[in-house]
């Protein structure tokens, strides 16, 4: 079973899917930084927006589901979809900063936004560290302060 599964009404994911997506996101942001392309960042922002709704429906998620997952053993355990969706929404914010920076000529803003997104995607892909998920409590504490 590699298809979508919902238990008790909430989404669960094969944890290797988001890792795979993070690896592709890393490559995209390296290219964004090397070419300074705001339009590529915009495409990535759309991917994040879809991912915040359902990570399995992004091009990366579909690639994983139909090309990669069928060649792998089923996952030992599935993970909750909510943290991943939250992290995708955080990614969307940084991607939009990048787009705004590059397309408006505020190149420094574009570079800073892309570097943050690059670090987050890289740490997720290589170390399984979800920076967006870690930021959750931080944001909650700051908002309530």
């Amino acid at each position, binding site marked *: 079973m590699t298809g979508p599964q919902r238990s008790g009404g909430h989404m669960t994911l094969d944890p290797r899917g988001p890792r795979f997506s993070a690896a592709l996101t890393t490559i995209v942001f390296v290219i964004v*930084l090397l070419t300074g392309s705001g339009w590529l960042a915009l495409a990535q922002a759309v991917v994040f927006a879809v991912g915040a709704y359902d990570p399995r429906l992004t091009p990366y998620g579909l690639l994983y589901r139909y090309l990669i997952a069928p060649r792998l053993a089923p996952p030992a355990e599935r993970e909750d979809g909510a943290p*991943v969706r939250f992290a995708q929404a955080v990614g969307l914010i940084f991607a939009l900063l990048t787009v705004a920076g590059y397309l408006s000529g505020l190149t420094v803003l574009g570079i800073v936004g892309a570097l943050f997104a690059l670090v987050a995607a890289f740490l997720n892909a290589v170390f399984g560290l979800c920076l967006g*998920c870690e930021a959750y*409590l931080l944001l*909650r504490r700051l908002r309530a302060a």
Partner: protein
Amino acid sequence: MTIVVLAVLAAATVAGLVYRARYGRLRAAQGDLPPGLLPPARDTVTLLQFSSATCAPCRRVRAVCADLAGGLDGVRHVELDADEHLDAVRELGIWRLPTLLVVDRSGRVATRTVGVPDQAALRATVTEVLAT
């Protein structure tokens, strides 16, 4: 720009290695729980877990703790939603989830773990705290 990208990736790699080395490690800690945070239970060691809805590894911490509490007398597992206990979260200096505190019989914090603790290490620590 290539150099900037490489430098940032190198720094991220160092940060990732530090993160990985610390994750799930049981560290000695100090301090009292805020009064009234937990229902009183005499002669009980508490595995106090702070979680949230968006926390992926919280489920695994829950499984480790529930297993331990189920197999040892005088040990209970309490899971709190950090969102609903922001005052306690602030008072205890908790920034990341899941955070697991081992609380001794007198309500003092003995150890603190960010991430998923190793089951054997946690069992050893709890046994030690039970013996004090």
